[in-house]
Protein backbone atom coordinates (compact mmCIF):
# COMPACT_ATOMS: atom_id res chain seq x y z
CA UNK A 1 0.00 0.00 0.00
CA UNK A 2 1.30 3.42 -0.94
CA UNK A 3 1.55 5.75 2.07
CA UNK A 4 2.76 9.24 1.36
CA UNK A 5 4.61 10.74 4.32
CA UNK A 6 5.47 14.40 4.80
CA UNK A 7 6.39 16.54 7.79
CA UNK A 8 4.70 19.82 8.38
CA UNK A 9 5.43 22.04 11.41
CA UNK A 10 6.87 19.09 13.38
CA UNK A 11 3.83 16.96 12.66
CA UNK A 12 3.95 13.84 10.49
CA UNK A 13 1.27 13.82 7.81
CA UNK A 14 0.35 10.42 6.36
CA UNK A 15 -1.67 10.18 3.17
CA UNK A 16 -2.64 6.60 2.32
CA UNK A 17 -3.46 6.19 -1.38
CA UNK A 18 -6.55 4.08 -0.91
CA UNK A 19 -10.26 4.38 -1.62
CA UNK A 20 -11.53 1.95 1.02
CA UNK A 21 -10.05 1.45 4.47
CA UNK A 22 -11.50 -2.01 5.05
CA UNK A 23 -10.56 -5.58 5.99
CA UNK A 24 -8.65 -6.00 2.71
CA UNK A 25 -6.12 -3.23 3.48
CA UNK A 26 -6.40 -2.66 7.26
CA UNK A 27 -3.30 -4.72 8.14
CA UNK A 28 -1.19 -3.18 5.36
CA UNK A 29 -2.36 0.28 6.41
CA UNK A 30 -1.38 -0.38 10.03
CA UNK A 31 2.05 -1.69 9.02
CA UNK A 32 2.74 1.21 6.65
CA UNK A 33 1.68 3.72 9.30
CA UNK A 34 3.83 2.14 12.01
CA UNK A 35 6.87 2.21 9.71
CA UNK A 36 6.21 5.87 8.87
CA UNK A 37 5.65 6.85 12.50
CA UNK A 38 8.41 4.73 14.09
CA UNK A 39 10.85 7.60 14.49
CA UNK A 40 8.36 10.45 14.32
CA UNK A 41 7.12 12.65 17.18
CA UNK A 42 3.88 11.28 18.68
CA UNK A 43 1.75 13.78 16.79
CA UNK A 44 0.39 12.77 13.45
CA UNK A 45 -2.24 13.62 10.88
CA UNK A 46 -3.79 11.02 8.64
CA UNK A 47 -5.20 12.55 5.49
CA UNK A 48 -8.13 10.39 4.40
CA UNK A 49 -9.38 12.58 1.56
CA UNK A 50 -9.11 9.71 -0.96
CA UNK A 51 -10.96 7.29 1.33
CA UNK A 52 -14.71 7.04 0.82
CA UNK A 53 -15.44 3.98 2.99
CA UNK A 54 -14.22 2.81 6.40
CA UNK A 55 -15.44 -0.43 7.99
CA UNK A 56 -14.89 -1.99 11.43
CA UNK A 57 -11.47 -3.32 10.40
CA UNK A 58 -10.45 0.15 9.23
CA UNK A 59 -11.66 1.70 12.48
CA UNK A 60 -9.63 -0.88 14.44
CA UNK A 61 -6.55 -0.04 12.35
CA UNK A 62 -6.92 3.70 13.09
CA UNK A 63 -7.21 3.00 16.84
CA UNK A 64 -4.11 0.78 16.61
CA UNK A 65 -2.17 3.63 15.01
CA UNK A 66 -3.33 6.03 17.73
CA UNK A 67 -2.34 3.57 20.48
CA UNK A 68 1.06 3.05 18.85
CA UNK A 69 1.76 6.77 19.44
CA UNK A 70 1.78 6.13 23.19
CA UNK A 71 -0.13 7.78 26.02
CA UNK A 72 0.90 11.29 24.91
CA UNK A 73 0.13 10.55 21.31
CA UNK A 74 -2.28 12.69 19.36
CA UNK A 75 -3.77 11.74 16.05
CA UNK A 76 -5.89 14.00 13.87
CA UNK A 77 -7.85 12.88 10.85
CA UNK A 78 -8.50 14.98 7.78
CA UNK A 79 -10.99 14.55 4.96
CA UNK A 80 -13.24 11.98 6.65
CA UNK A 81 -16.00 11.14 4.15
CA UNK A 82 -19.71 11.32 5.12
CA UNK A 83 -20.11 7.53 5.47
CA UNK A 84 -17.09 7.34 7.75
CA UNK A 85 -18.30 10.36 9.75
CA UNK A 86 -21.52 8.47 10.44
CA UNK A 87 -19.48 5.50 11.73
CA UNK A 88 -17.26 7.78 13.82
CA UNK A 89 -20.32 9.38 15.37
CA UNK A 90 -22.10 6.05 15.96
CA UNK A 91 -19.04 4.61 17.70
CA UNK A 92 -18.06 7.90 19.40
CA UNK A 93 -14.66 7.73 17.74
CA UNK A 94 -15.25 11.43 16.98
CA UNK A 95 -14.40 11.91 20.67
CA UNK A 96 -11.14 9.96 20.32
CA UNK A 97 -9.84 11.40 17.06
CA UNK A 98 -9.79 15.09 16.24
CA UNK A 99 -11.49 15.51 12.87
CA UNK A 100 -10.40 18.45 10.71
CA UNK A 101 -11.33 19.77 7.30
CA UNK A 102 -7.81 20.52 6.08
CA UNK A 103 -4.26 19.35 6.78
CA UNK A 104 -3.23 22.91 7.73
CA UNK A 105 -6.02 23.15 10.27
CA UNK A 106 -5.07 19.77 11.76
CA UNK A 107 -1.36 20.63 11.91
CA UNK A 108 -2.13 23.96 13.60
CA UNK A 109 -4.35 22.24 16.14
CA UNK A 110 -1.69 19.62 16.92
CA UNK A 111 1.10 22.21 17.13
CA UNK A 112 -0.67 24.08 19.95
Amino acid at each position, binding site marked *: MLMETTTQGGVTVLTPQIVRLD*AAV*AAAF*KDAASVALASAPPRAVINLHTVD*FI*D*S*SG*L*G*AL*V*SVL*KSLGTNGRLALVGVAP*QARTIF*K*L*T*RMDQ*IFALHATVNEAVTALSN
Partner: protein
Amino acid sequence: MLVLIADADDARARLLRGIVARWGGEALVVSSIEQARSAVAQLGARLVLCGPSLNGGGPELVSALRAGDTMGVGRVEPGRLIVLYVDPETLDTDPESVMARARTLGADDIIAGPLDAAGIGLRLDLARRMLELGDRLVEQTAQLTAAIERMSRDLEAAAAMQRTLLPPPSLKIGPLAFESLLAPSTVVAGDIFNYFRLDDRHIAFYLLDVAGHGVPSAMMSVTLSRVLTPQAMILGRRREDAALPADQRIRAPADVVAELNRRFRFNGQVSSYFTMILGVFDAETGLLRLCQAGHPCPIVLRPGAAPLQIGGSGFPVGLWDGATFDEITVTLQPGDRLVLHSDGITEAPKAQTQALYGDARLLSLLQDAGDRPLRAVLDTVAAEALRWSGGELSDDVSLLAFEVLPVGALELDADDAIVG
Protein backbone atom coordinates in the same frame (compact mmCIF):
# COMPACT_ATOMS: atom_id res chain seq x y z
CA MET B 1 13.29 -44.63 -17.68
CA LEU B 2 11.33 -46.42 -20.39
CA VAL B 3 11.64 -44.65 -23.75
CA LEU B 4 9.27 -45.79 -26.47
CA ILE B 5 10.77 -45.58 -29.96
CA ALA B 6 7.90 -45.59 -32.45
CA ASP B 7 9.33 -45.98 -35.93
CA ALA B 8 9.11 -48.62 -38.67
CA ASP B 9 12.48 -47.65 -40.17
CA ASP B 10 14.81 -50.31 -38.72
CA ALA B 11 18.05 -48.42 -39.26
CA ARG B 12 16.76 -45.24 -37.59
CA ALA B 13 15.16 -47.23 -34.76
CA ARG B 14 18.48 -48.98 -34.11
CA LEU B 15 20.33 -45.69 -34.08
CA LEU B 16 17.80 -44.20 -31.67
CA ARG B 17 17.95 -47.31 -29.45
CA GLY B 18 21.73 -46.83 -29.17
CA ILE B 19 21.34 -43.17 -28.29
CA VAL B 20 18.70 -43.93 -25.63
CA ALA B 21 20.89 -46.69 -24.14
CA ARG B 22 23.87 -44.33 -23.89
CA TRP B 23 21.62 -41.72 -22.30
CA GLY B 24 20.77 -44.31 -19.67
CA GLY B 25 17.23 -45.13 -20.72
CA GLU B 26 15.52 -48.42 -21.42
CA ALA B 27 14.45 -48.47 -25.08
CA LEU B 28 11.44 -50.27 -26.50
CA VAL B 29 10.96 -50.22 -30.26
CA VAL B 30 7.51 -50.49 -31.83
CA SER B 31 6.65 -50.16 -35.49
CA SER B 32 2.93 -49.41 -35.56
CA ILE B 33 0.55 -46.90 -34.02
CA GLU B 34 -1.41 -49.75 -32.32
CA GLN B 35 1.74 -51.15 -30.69
CA ALA B 36 2.67 -47.67 -29.53
CA ARG B 37 -0.74 -47.05 -28.00
CA SER B 38 -0.68 -50.38 -26.22
CA ALA B 39 2.83 -49.69 -24.83
CA VAL B 40 1.60 -46.39 -23.42
CA ALA B 41 -1.55 -47.96 -22.00
CA GLN B 42 -0.09 -51.19 -20.64
CA LEU B 43 3.56 -50.49 -19.91
CA GLY B 44 2.98 -46.92 -18.83
CA ALA B 45 5.55 -45.52 -21.26
CA ARG B 46 5.68 -41.76 -20.72
CA LEU B 47 8.44 -40.70 -23.06
CA VAL B 48 7.90 -41.33 -26.75
CA LEU B 49 10.32 -40.77 -29.63
CA CYS B 50 8.04 -40.82 -32.64
CA GLY B 51 9.42 -41.17 -36.17
CA PRO B 52 7.77 -40.29 -39.48
CA SER B 53 7.65 -43.80 -40.93
CA LEU B 54 5.55 -45.37 -38.18
CA ASN B 55 2.86 -47.72 -39.55
CA GLY B 56 -0.36 -45.77 -39.16
CA GLY B 57 1.52 -42.47 -39.25
CA GLY B 58 3.72 -40.53 -36.84
CA PRO B 59 1.55 -37.40 -36.64
CA GLU B 60 -1.45 -39.68 -36.18
CA LEU B 61 0.20 -41.22 -33.09
CA VAL B 62 0.82 -37.76 -31.62
CA SER B 63 -2.79 -36.88 -32.27
CA ALA B 64 -4.06 -40.16 -30.79
CA LEU B 65 -2.01 -39.80 -27.62
CA ARG B 66 -3.02 -36.21 -27.06
CA ALA B 67 -6.69 -36.96 -27.74
CA GLY B 68 -6.69 -39.68 -25.08
CA ASP B 69 -7.03 -42.50 -27.58
CA THR B 70 -4.62 -44.58 -25.52
CA MET B 71 -6.69 -47.66 -24.84
CA GLY B 72 -8.25 -46.62 -21.62
CA VAL B 73 -5.63 -44.45 -19.90
CA GLY B 74 -7.74 -41.41 -20.60
CA ARG B 75 -6.71 -38.03 -21.83
CA VAL B 76 -2.98 -37.51 -21.41
CA GLU B 77 -2.03 -34.06 -20.20
CA PRO B 78 1.30 -32.51 -21.16
CA GLY B 79 3.49 -33.24 -18.19
CA ARG B 80 2.23 -36.82 -17.93
CA LEU B 81 3.48 -37.92 -21.36
CA ILE B 82 6.17 -36.34 -23.52
CA VAL B 83 6.21 -36.93 -27.25
CA LEU B 84 9.36 -35.95 -29.16
CA TYR B 85 8.89 -36.04 -32.89
CA VAL B 86 12.03 -37.20 -34.74
CA ASP B 87 12.44 -36.57 -38.45
CA PRO B 88 16.04 -36.33 -39.70
CA GLU B 89 15.03 -35.93 -43.33
CA THR B 90 12.51 -33.09 -43.25
CA LEU B 91 13.36 -29.56 -42.28
CA ASP B 92 10.66 -27.81 -40.29
CA THR B 93 10.09 -24.97 -42.71
CA ASP B 94 7.31 -26.26 -44.91
CA PRO B 95 3.92 -25.57 -43.25
CA GLU B 96 2.58 -28.70 -44.94
CA SER B 97 5.38 -31.01 -43.73
CA VAL B 98 4.67 -34.01 -41.46
CA MET B 99 6.85 -32.35 -38.86
CA ALA B 100 4.75 -29.18 -38.92
CA ARG B 101 1.64 -31.35 -38.62
CA ALA B 102 3.12 -33.30 -35.67
CA ARG B 103 3.89 -30.06 -33.93
CA THR B 104 0.40 -28.72 -34.57
CA LEU B 105 -1.05 -31.96 -33.23
CA GLY B 106 0.76 -31.58 -29.94
CA ALA B 107 4.32 -32.97 -30.09
CA ASP B 108 6.31 -31.50 -27.22
CA ASP B 109 9.43 -31.03 -29.27
CA ILE B 110 10.79 -31.87 -32.70
CA ILE B 111 14.21 -33.17 -33.54
CA ALA B 112 15.11 -32.29 -37.13
CA GLY B 113 18.25 -32.87 -39.11
CA PRO B 114 20.93 -35.55 -38.58
CA LEU B 115 20.52 -37.59 -35.41
CA ASP B 116 22.98 -36.32 -32.83
CA ALA B 117 23.44 -38.25 -29.57
CA ALA B 118 24.29 -35.21 -27.46
CA GLY B 119 21.38 -33.16 -28.81
CA ILE B 120 18.88 -35.98 -28.30
CA GLY B 121 20.32 -36.68 -24.83
CA LEU B 122 19.67 -33.06 -23.93
CA ARG B 123 16.05 -33.27 -25.15
CA LEU B 124 15.59 -36.48 -23.16
CA ASP B 125 16.99 -34.76 -20.04
CA LEU B 126 14.51 -31.92 -20.50
CA ALA B 127 11.68 -34.36 -21.08
CA ARG B 128 12.50 -36.28 -17.91
CA ARG B 129 12.60 -33.06 -15.89
CA MET B 130 9.22 -32.05 -17.30
CA LEU B 131 7.76 -35.43 -16.37
CA GLU B 132 9.16 -35.11 -12.84
CA LEU B 133 7.68 -31.61 -12.52
CA GLY B 134 4.37 -32.93 -13.81
CA ASP B 135 4.44 -35.70 -11.18
CA ARG B 136 5.21 -33.22 -8.44
CA LEU B 137 2.38 -30.98 -9.62
CA VAL B 138 -0.09 -33.87 -9.54
CA GLU B 139 1.09 -34.86 -6.06
CA GLN B 140 0.92 -31.32 -4.72
CA THR B 141 -2.50 -30.74 -6.26
CA ALA B 142 -3.74 -33.89 -4.51
CA GLN B 143 -2.30 -32.66 -1.20
CA LEU B 144 -3.84 -29.20 -1.65
CA THR B 145 -7.21 -30.65 -2.58
CA ALA B 146 -7.12 -32.87 0.50
CA ALA B 147 -6.09 -29.92 2.69
CA ILE B 148 -8.86 -27.70 1.30
CA GLU B 149 -11.42 -30.46 1.82
CA ARG B 150 -10.23 -30.94 5.39
CA MET B 151 -10.45 -27.19 6.09
CA SER B 152 -13.88 -26.95 4.49
CA ARG B 153 -15.11 -29.82 6.67
CA ASP B 154 -13.62 -28.13 9.75
CA LEU B 155 -15.23 -24.84 8.81
CA GLU B 156 -18.61 -26.51 8.24
CA ALA B 157 -18.26 -28.23 11.60
CA ALA B 158 -17.41 -24.90 13.24
CA ALA B 159 -20.44 -23.30 11.57
CA ALA B 160 -22.69 -26.12 12.80
CA MET B 161 -21.25 -25.69 16.29
CA GLN B 162 -21.85 -21.94 16.10
CA ARG B 163 -25.47 -22.48 15.02
CA THR B 164 -26.07 -24.60 18.11
CA LEU B 165 -25.33 -21.50 20.20
CA LEU B 166 -28.19 -19.57 18.62
CA PRO B 167 -31.63 -19.59 20.21
CA PRO B 168 -34.63 -21.02 18.31
CA PRO B 169 -35.39 -18.49 15.52
CA SER B 170 -38.94 -18.08 16.88
CA LEU B 171 -39.32 -18.17 20.63
CA LYS B 172 -41.94 -16.82 23.01
CA ILE B 173 -40.53 -15.81 26.39
CA GLY B 174 -43.21 -14.43 28.66
CA PRO B 175 -44.91 -11.54 26.83
CA LEU B 176 -42.17 -11.28 24.20
CA ALA B 177 -42.43 -13.16 20.93
CA PHE B 178 -38.86 -13.21 19.58
CA GLU B 179 -37.87 -13.72 15.96
CA SER B 180 -34.29 -13.81 14.72
CA LEU B 181 -32.20 -14.49 11.68
CA LEU B 182 -28.50 -14.91 10.91
CA ALA B 183 -27.09 -14.96 7.36
CA PRO B 184 -23.28 -15.29 7.48
CA SER B 185 -21.26 -13.77 4.62
CA THR B 186 -18.80 -16.69 4.87
CA VAL B 187 -19.43 -20.12 6.41
CA VAL B 188 -18.97 -18.89 9.95
CA ALA B 189 -20.21 -15.57 11.34
CA GLY B 190 -18.90 -12.75 13.51
CA ASP B 191 -22.49 -11.85 14.40
CA ILE B 192 -24.25 -13.68 17.21
CA PHE B 193 -27.31 -13.10 19.41
CA ASN B 194 -29.43 -14.66 22.09
CA TYR B 195 -32.50 -14.10 24.24
CA PHE B 196 -33.33 -15.68 27.58
CA ARG B 197 -35.29 -15.24 30.75
CA LEU B 198 -33.53 -13.83 33.81
CA ASP B 199 -36.25 -14.27 36.45
CA ASP B 200 -40.03 -14.33 36.61
CA ARG B 201 -40.32 -10.81 35.16
CA HIS B 202 -37.08 -9.94 33.36
CA ILE B 203 -36.03 -11.05 29.91
CA ALA B 204 -32.60 -10.27 28.45
CA PHE B 205 -31.44 -10.22 24.84
CA TYR B 206 -28.40 -9.14 22.88
CA LEU B 207 -27.14 -8.90 19.34
CA LEU B 208 -23.43 -8.40 18.75
CA ASP B 209 -21.14 -7.98 15.77
CA VAL B 210 -17.43 -8.76 16.13
CA ALA B 211 -15.28 -6.51 13.93
CA GLY B 212 -13.73 -8.11 10.86
CA HIS B 213 -14.98 -11.29 9.21
CA GLY B 214 -14.34 -15.00 9.03
CA VAL B 215 -12.79 -17.39 11.51
CA PRO B 216 -11.15 -14.95 13.98
CA SER B 217 -14.41 -13.00 14.34
CA ALA B 218 -16.43 -16.20 14.62
CA MET B 219 -14.18 -17.55 17.38
CA MET B 220 -14.62 -14.30 19.29
CA SER B 221 -18.41 -14.40 18.81
CA VAL B 222 -18.52 -17.95 20.19
CA THR B 223 -16.46 -16.87 23.21
CA LEU B 224 -18.81 -13.94 23.85
CA SER B 225 -21.92 -16.09 23.59
CA ARG B 226 -20.41 -18.30 26.31
CA VAL B 227 -19.81 -15.23 28.49
CA LEU B 228 -23.19 -13.57 27.95
CA THR B 229 -25.28 -15.99 29.97
CA PRO B 230 -28.22 -15.27 32.28
CA GLN B 231 -25.76 -15.54 35.19
CA ALA B 232 -23.72 -12.65 33.75
CA MET B 233 -26.84 -10.47 33.92
CA ILE B 234 -27.71 -11.22 37.53
CA LEU B 235 -25.87 -10.06 40.63
CA GLY B 236 -25.12 -12.81 43.08
CA ARG B 237 -21.44 -13.48 42.96
CA ARG B 238 -20.88 -11.41 46.11
CA ARG B 239 -22.54 -12.33 49.38
CA GLU B 240 -24.24 -8.92 49.78
CA ASP B 241 -25.73 -9.26 46.28
CA ALA B 242 -27.23 -12.60 47.17
CA ALA B 243 -29.12 -10.87 49.98
CA LEU B 244 -30.83 -8.44 47.56
CA PRO B 245 -34.48 -8.94 46.65
CA ALA B 246 -34.74 -10.87 43.39
CA ASP B 247 -35.89 -7.90 41.33
CA GLN B 248 -32.93 -5.76 42.40
CA ARG B 249 -30.41 -8.37 41.38
CA ILE B 250 -30.83 -7.70 37.67
CA ARG B 251 -27.73 -5.86 36.47
CA ALA B 252 -28.00 -2.71 34.38
CA PRO B 253 -27.11 -3.51 30.74
CA ALA B 254 -24.61 -0.63 30.69
CA ASP B 255 -22.79 -2.13 33.70
CA VAL B 256 -22.55 -5.51 32.01
CA VAL B 257 -21.21 -3.88 28.84
CA ALA B 258 -18.69 -1.81 30.84
CA GLU B 259 -17.46 -5.03 32.44
CA LEU B 260 -17.07 -6.63 29.01
CA ASN B 261 -15.07 -3.56 27.95
CA ARG B 262 -12.69 -4.17 30.85
CA ARG B 263 -12.42 -7.89 30.16
CA PHE B 264 -11.95 -7.78 26.39
CA ARG B 265 -9.27 -5.20 25.76
CA PHE B 266 -8.17 -4.15 22.32
CA ASN B 267 -4.97 -5.97 21.39
CA GLY B 268 -4.50 -4.61 17.88
CA GLN B 269 -6.32 -7.58 16.34
CA VAL B 270 -9.42 -6.25 14.65
CA SER B 271 -11.53 -9.17 15.88
CA SER B 272 -10.80 -8.22 19.48
CA TYR B 273 -13.56 -5.60 19.55
CA PHE B 274 -17.26 -5.70 18.85
CA THR B 275 -20.42 -3.66 18.73
CA MET B 276 -23.58 -4.73 20.52
CA ILE B 277 -26.99 -3.95 21.85
CA LEU B 278 -27.79 -5.49 25.22
CA GLY B 279 -31.30 -5.15 26.61
CA VAL B 280 -33.37 -6.13 29.60
CA PHE B 281 -37.17 -6.01 29.46
CA ASP B 282 -39.30 -5.84 32.60
CA ALA B 283 -42.50 -7.69 31.78
CA GLU B 284 -44.30 -6.16 34.75
CA THR B 285 -43.75 -2.50 33.84
CA GLY B 286 -42.98 -2.72 30.13
CA LEU B 287 -39.71 -0.87 30.79
CA LEU B 288 -36.94 -1.69 28.36
CA ARG B 289 -33.36 -0.84 29.36
CA LEU B 290 -30.81 -0.93 26.57
CA CYS B 291 -27.12 -0.31 26.15
CA GLN B 292 -26.01 0.65 22.65
CA ALA B 293 -22.30 -0.04 22.21
CA GLY B 294 -21.23 1.25 18.78
CA HIS B 295 -24.03 -0.75 17.20
CA PRO B 296 -26.67 0.57 14.77
CA CYS B 297 -29.66 2.09 16.54
CA PRO B 298 -32.53 -0.14 17.68
CA ILE B 299 -35.81 0.57 15.88
CA VAL B 300 -39.17 0.72 17.64
CA LEU B 301 -42.23 -0.12 15.55
CA ARG B 302 -45.46 1.10 17.13
CA PRO B 303 -48.74 0.37 15.36
CA GLY B 304 -49.91 3.45 13.48
CA ALA B 305 -46.62 5.32 13.91
CA ALA B 306 -43.55 5.69 11.75
CA PRO B 307 -40.56 3.46 12.62
CA LEU B 308 -38.46 5.21 15.24
CA GLN B 309 -34.74 4.83 15.76
CA ILE B 310 -33.81 5.11 19.44
CA GLY B 311 -30.43 5.78 21.01
CA GLY B 312 -27.78 7.43 18.90
CA SER B 313 -24.24 6.45 19.67
CA GLY B 314 -21.97 4.58 22.05
CA PHE B 315 -18.44 3.24 22.19
CA PRO B 316 -17.89 -0.26 20.80
CA VAL B 317 -16.80 -2.85 23.37
CA GLY B 318 -13.11 -3.61 23.69
CA LEU B 319 -11.87 -0.75 21.51
CA TRP B 320 -11.16 1.98 24.03
CA ASP B 321 -10.11 1.48 27.65
CA GLY B 322 -11.68 4.60 29.13
CA ALA B 323 -15.03 4.16 27.39
CA THR B 324 -18.17 4.77 29.41
CA PHE B 325 -21.54 3.30 28.52
CA ASP B 326 -24.99 4.85 28.69
CA GLU B 327 -28.42 3.41 29.18
CA ILE B 328 -31.41 4.03 26.94
CA THR B 329 -34.82 3.40 28.42
CA VAL B 330 -38.15 3.17 26.67
CA THR B 331 -41.49 1.87 27.88
CA LEU B 332 -43.12 -0.54 25.49
CA GLN B 333 -46.77 -1.44 25.27
CA PRO B 334 -48.51 -4.47 23.82
CA GLY B 335 -48.30 -4.43 20.03
CA ASP B 336 -44.95 -2.61 20.02
CA ARG B 337 -42.08 -4.21 18.21
CA LEU B 338 -38.35 -3.75 18.61
CA VAL B 339 -35.93 -4.53 15.77
CA LEU B 340 -32.15 -4.85 16.18
CA HIS B 341 -29.97 -5.29 13.13
CA SER B 342 -26.30 -5.55 12.25
CA ASP B 343 -24.56 -3.11 9.92
CA GLY B 344 -24.38 -5.93 7.38
CA ILE B 345 -27.77 -4.60 6.26
CA THR B 346 -27.36 -0.82 6.37
CA GLU B 347 -23.71 -0.86 5.23
CA ALA B 348 -24.35 -3.37 2.43
CA PRO B 349 -22.74 -1.94 -0.72
CA LYS B 350 -24.70 -2.10 -3.97
CA ALA B 351 -22.97 -4.41 -6.41
CA GLN B 352 -22.05 -1.88 -9.14
CA THR B 353 -22.10 1.53 -7.48
CA GLN B 354 -20.95 0.63 -3.94
CA ALA B 355 -23.81 2.84 -2.68
CA LEU B 356 -24.75 1.78 0.84
CA TYR B 357 -28.22 0.43 1.63
CA GLY B 358 -28.51 2.91 4.48
CA ASP B 359 -30.87 3.59 7.39
CA ALA B 360 -33.49 5.38 5.31
CA ARG B 361 -34.18 2.40 3.06
CA LEU B 362 -34.40 0.06 6.06
CA LEU B 363 -36.84 2.37 7.86
CA SER B 364 -39.00 2.70 4.79
CA LEU B 365 -38.98 -1.07 4.26
CA LEU B 366 -40.10 -1.55 7.87
CA GLN B 367 -42.79 1.11 7.45
CA ASP B 368 -44.10 -0.63 4.33
CA ALA B 369 -44.10 -3.97 6.12
CA GLY B 370 -46.77 -2.54 8.46
CA ASP B 371 -48.27 -5.19 10.71
CA ARG B 372 -47.19 -8.21 8.70
CA PRO B 373 -45.94 -11.07 10.90
CA LEU B 374 -42.53 -10.26 12.34
CA ARG B 375 -41.03 -13.42 10.84
CA ALA B 376 -42.01 -12.29 7.35
CA VAL B 377 -40.66 -8.79 8.03
CA LEU B 378 -37.22 -10.13 9.04
CA ASP B 379 -37.10 -12.45 6.03
CA THR B 380 -37.95 -9.53 3.76
CA VAL B 381 -35.21 -7.34 5.24
CA ALA B 382 -32.59 -10.10 4.84
CA ALA B 383 -33.71 -10.82 1.27
CA GLU B 384 -33.54 -7.12 0.47
CA ALA B 385 -29.96 -6.86 1.83
CA LEU B 386 -28.97 -9.85 -0.31
CA ARG B 387 -30.69 -8.42 -3.39
CA TRP B 388 -29.02 -5.03 -2.83
CA SER B 389 -25.59 -6.71 -2.58
CA GLY B 390 -26.14 -8.44 -5.91
CA GLY B 391 -26.71 -11.89 -4.40
CA GLU B 392 -23.51 -12.06 -2.37
CA LEU B 393 -23.26 -10.66 1.16
CA SER B 394 -20.02 -8.85 2.00
CA ASP B 395 -20.79 -8.86 5.73
CA ASP B 396 -22.86 -10.98 8.10
CA VAL B 397 -26.52 -10.03 8.28
CA SER B 398 -28.25 -10.56 11.61
CA LEU B 399 -31.65 -9.49 12.89
CA LEU B 400 -33.24 -9.87 16.28
CA ALA B 401 -36.75 -8.60 16.92
CA PHE B 402 -39.62 -9.10 19.28
CA GLU B 403 -43.23 -8.11 19.61
CA VAL B 404 -44.83 -7.32 22.96
CA LEU B 405 -47.86 -9.56 23.10
CA PRO B 406 -51.23 -8.34 24.39
CA VAL B 407 -51.85 -8.46 28.15
CA GLY B 408 -53.88 -11.67 27.86
CA ALA B 409 -50.75 -13.48 26.77
CA LEU B 410 -48.77 -12.40 29.80
CA GLU B 411 -49.11 -15.60 31.82
CA LEU B 412 -45.78 -17.30 32.10
CA ASP B 413 -45.24 -20.50 30.25
CA ALA B 414 -44.46 -23.37 32.55
CA ASP B 415 -41.82 -24.48 30.06
CA ASP B 416 -39.80 -21.28 30.29
CA ALA B 417 -36.60 -21.85 32.14
CA ILE B 418 -36.28 -19.57 35.13
CA VAL B 419 -32.80 -18.71 36.22
CA GLY B 420 -32.44 -17.24 39.65
